[in-house]
């Protein structure tokens, strides 16, 4: 046996002799296991989150104006969107940065948001009627209506009138129910009287004699009774759409088509489209199906029960969309499907939506096959033109019409609200909304001033109008109803969207103009820090006034989350190892004192101090390596198992962090090495003092009995 062998043997036997070593070992094992598993998980999370952030919006590096007041925070910060100064020399910057070795591409960007209202069905239908009547009078706003023959116009007017009358019937029925419950006094008699009036044939017979007055009556007295217009906050990212799609290859167009190269256009984030713009009943049916497919049961799930209940009570969105003919058709279909004789569509729908685990599939299938074709499932249809109004940075209101070409999502992040709520817009429209003068806009303003003598809206009076309020505002979305041509009903339209929608912009036109930030895609992501430094240096040399930050920094709080959890982990591990150190220190101290005669004897018969030191240290290192090794093995095993199984995302938010439905964690060899170093450091450090004490034991101690 060698000297080391002997020391190991002494260490091993000493360890076996003392039960406290089990406690120490347990702590070391727990600390190592925690470090390897949680550390590995955090690393994997960091990687997957990096993929999500990089692949969905940030790119590897973000650049923005160094004159900005706030730091860039792509997912919004504590106080909403950060205030960024505009980058005005983008083409020069793009060229310079793309000249760097590791840079693949620079994609221009700018993000903002607007509140949009999807007008309620009565408003929309009445506005349609008004436009049709206007067209009949020969003063159509919409060029598409102006092209219709008088016969076609009449047919549409009578269809729309029927729809309005159907709406009134529904409102009347609602009112009757309300009256029965509330007794007369609770309802404004004026409201009752108005409804009474417009439900009479006489009102409609006289309609054409004074169409404007009749419309006004309907708009003022009837429309306000339906107040369920929905406010939606639309977040959008203005970018070079073509380049964006090439650079962010996880992006996929789901419905519709990509925006043609160089054209204006809008792509709605699929999740937002489904969550916010889809008919609520249909959306809830989807969610119910999704949940039951994942093994949840309506019978025992409170959230699902709530969906069913809401589906049963909130059927008005469907009923109001149907004119008299379609109401009759839907009623017949439902009566046959439900084997019921109830003549009331609302009651039938309520029965129909009473879905259970057994009938859900059949009902959902019926809904999509039979009812959906009669109604509009989405508040905005692919192909519609969306009018977005927002306050510019200067305070004026800008409205922009953009055609919705389709919806998109990022592969793996389909369900993530973080990645699925930001829609995409062309840079031209974004600049219009943001209030920077574009070529189009300059021309337009000139034309407007000539045409109407309108004054340029100054910042001061714009703010007066709006009581100095915040940043975003109303846009009205077209809710196209039934199988008619897409009609455009935007309010406050100032641009001739027909021309603009078709206009194709060149790359240089797209690039020259302001952007707020830009994503830099690199060739080798491991050189990120060096590339960031290179960009910042370049900015100084060439006076570009830009600042480059990593995707992590650019993602604000989100990017700090992993760092935060890593801090927590380190604290926990430190805590465990701290306790281990105290116990090791104590135990080794005791052991040393108990072994003074043995150590004294060794010294007497010729062992140098260094041997005693080595002997004591060996003991705790063996302990550490042994239990730490088991911890590492166990941790690696757990990680391998987790990798094989995958960790399913517990909720939609987690999709983003997992970069998909499952996290497949990996243990990095770096983590194992760090774990080993920590164990060695902890054991050596905590034994150092007892070991030094041991070397001070005199050989004279050999002559005395142990205490």
């Amino acid at each position, binding site marked *: 046996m060698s000297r080391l062998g002997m020391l190991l043997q002494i260490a091993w036997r000493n360890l076996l002799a003392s039960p406290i070593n089990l406690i120490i070992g347990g702590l070391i094992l727990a600390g190592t296991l925690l470090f390897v598993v949680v550390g590995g998980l955090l690393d994997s999370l960091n990687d997957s989150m990096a993929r999500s952030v990089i692949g969905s919006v940030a790119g590897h590096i973000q650049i923005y104006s160094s004159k900005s007041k706030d730091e860039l925070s792509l997912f919004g910060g504590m106080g909403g969107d950060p205030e960024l100064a505009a980058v005005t020399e983008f083409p020069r910057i793009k060229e310079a940065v793309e000249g760097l070795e590791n840079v693949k591409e620079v994609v221009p960007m700018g993000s903002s948001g607007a509140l949009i209202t999807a007008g309620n069905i009565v408003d929309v239908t009445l506005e349609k009627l008004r436009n049709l009547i206007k067209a009949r009078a020969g003063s159509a706003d919409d060029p598409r209506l102006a092209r219709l023959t008088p016969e076609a116009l009449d047919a549409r007017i009578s269809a729309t009138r029927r729809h309005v009358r159907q709406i009134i019937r529904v409102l009347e029925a609602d009112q009757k129910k309300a009256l029965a419950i509330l007794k007369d006094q609770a309802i404004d008699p004026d409201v009752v009287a108005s409804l009474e009036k417009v439900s009479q044939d006489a009102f409609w017979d006289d309609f054409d004699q004074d169409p404007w007055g009749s419309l006004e009556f309907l708009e003022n007295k009837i429309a306000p009774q339906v107040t369920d217009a929905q406010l939606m906050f639309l977040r959008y990212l203005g970018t070079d759409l073509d380049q964006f799609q090439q650079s962010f290859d996880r992006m996929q167009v789901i419905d519709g088509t990509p925006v043609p190269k160089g054209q204006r256009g809008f792509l709605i984030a699929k999740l937002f489209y489904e969550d916010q713009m889809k008919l609520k009943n249909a959306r809830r049916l989807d969610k119910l199906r999704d949940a039951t497919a994942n093994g949840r049961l309506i019978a025992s799930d409170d959230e699902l029960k709530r969906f069913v209940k809401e589906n049963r009570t909130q059927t008005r969105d469907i009923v109001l969309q149907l004119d008299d003919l379609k109401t009759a058709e839907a009623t017949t279909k439902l009566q046959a499907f439900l084997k019921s004789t109830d003549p009331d569509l609302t009651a039938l729908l309520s029965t129909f939506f009473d879905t259970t685990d057994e009938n859900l599939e059949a009902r959902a299938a019926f809904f999509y096959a039979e009812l959906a074709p009669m109604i509009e499932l989405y508040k905005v249809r692919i192909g519609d033109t969306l009018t977005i109004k927002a306050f510019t940075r200067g305070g004026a209101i800008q409205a922009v019409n953009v055609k919705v070409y389709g919806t998109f999502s990022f592969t793996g992040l389909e369900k993530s609200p973080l990645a699925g709520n930001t829609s995409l817009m062309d840079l031209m429209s974004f600049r219009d909304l943001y209030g920077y003068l574009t070529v189009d806009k300059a021309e337009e303003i000139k034309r407007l001033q000539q045409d109407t003598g309108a004054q340029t809206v100054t910042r001061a009076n714009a703010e007066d109008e709006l009581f100095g309020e915040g940043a975003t505002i109303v846009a009205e979305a077209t809710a196209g109803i039934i199988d008619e041509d897409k009609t455009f009903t935007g309010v406050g339209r100032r641009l001739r969207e027909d021309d603009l929608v078709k206009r194709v912009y060149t790359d240089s036109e797209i690039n020259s103009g302001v952007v707020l930030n830009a994503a830099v895609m690199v060739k080798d992501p491991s050189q990120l820090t060096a590339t960031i430094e290179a960009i910042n240096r370049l900015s100084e040399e060439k006076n570009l006034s830009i600042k480059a930050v990593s995707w992590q920094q650019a993602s604000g709080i989100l990017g700090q989350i992993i760092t935060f959890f890593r801090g927590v982990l380190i604290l926990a591990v430190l805590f465990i190892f701290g306790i281990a150190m105290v116990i090791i220190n104590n135990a080794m101290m005791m052991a040393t004192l108990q072994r003074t*005669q043995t150590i004294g004897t060794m010294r007497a018969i010729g062992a140098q101090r260094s041997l005693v030191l080595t002997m004591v240290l060996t003991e705790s290192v063996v302990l550490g390596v042994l239990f730490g090794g088991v911890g590492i093995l166990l941790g690696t095993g757990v990680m391998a198992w987790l990798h094989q199984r995958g960790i399913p995302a517990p909720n939609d938010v987690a999709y983003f962090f997992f970069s998909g439905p499952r996290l497949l964690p990996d243990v990095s060899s770096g983590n194992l090495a760090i774990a080993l170093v920590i164990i060695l450091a902890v054991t050596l450090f905590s034994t150092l003092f007892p070991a030094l004490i041991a070397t001070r034991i005199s050989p004279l101690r*050999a002559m005395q009995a142990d205490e």
Partner: protein
Amino acid sequence: MNSIVSIRDVVKEYELGTTVVQALRGVNLDVQKGEFLSIAGPSGSGKTTLLNLIGCVDTATRGVVQVAGRDTARLTERELTDLRLNTIGFIFQSFNLVAVLNVFQNVEFPLLLQRKLGAKARKERVMSLLEQVGLHTHARHRPSELSGGQRQRVAVARALVTEPLLVLADEPTANLDSETGNQIIDLMKELNVKKGTTFIFSTHDHKVMQHANAVIRLADGKVLARESAKDAVAHALSLGEAPTAEARA
């Protein structure tokens, strides 16, 4: 000169708080190679103190202690340790085996410290010594599985395994019954004769004493006389000192 140990005017003082205890008060002593020397004297007379100085585990307050021709006062801690390892063997009153090592490993221990011999040579050396002390069949036993006498035999083997010039034993038989004690002394004597190793041991026991070539009589920190074993035993008996180990126990 043939002296293995040479001690001149050695004084050893222990400080106990404010008072100073003089354990040795001017000791002179020469030990020749091959001697089988006993140190006798009443309790507290300084036997252990003297052996510690010779064994280089302690240093004198004044005077010169030379072991194997080297002045121990001039050696560093490391050099003293090396001197102990290579020149001196120790046998302790309470055996002092390493409890977690087996018999073989205990005996092998000094050889591992020396790093002079390879594994095979070490094994031969250890086994031959175990055979000489009659324990070659117990090589794999742990000390706790042995009797007191057997343990002390292992200690003897350990002390001799490095073939030291000098073996020191402070009351090697005090924890043994008289018969076993005698066997240990016989074993030491046998090795002294066979290998010429010098032995210095202390004892109270006149039966043990009588095996010695010579006896150094200590009293009150001074050497009273150097006499033959026979004289020493007679003297001890006349002083009415504890006659046998059994009687003392």
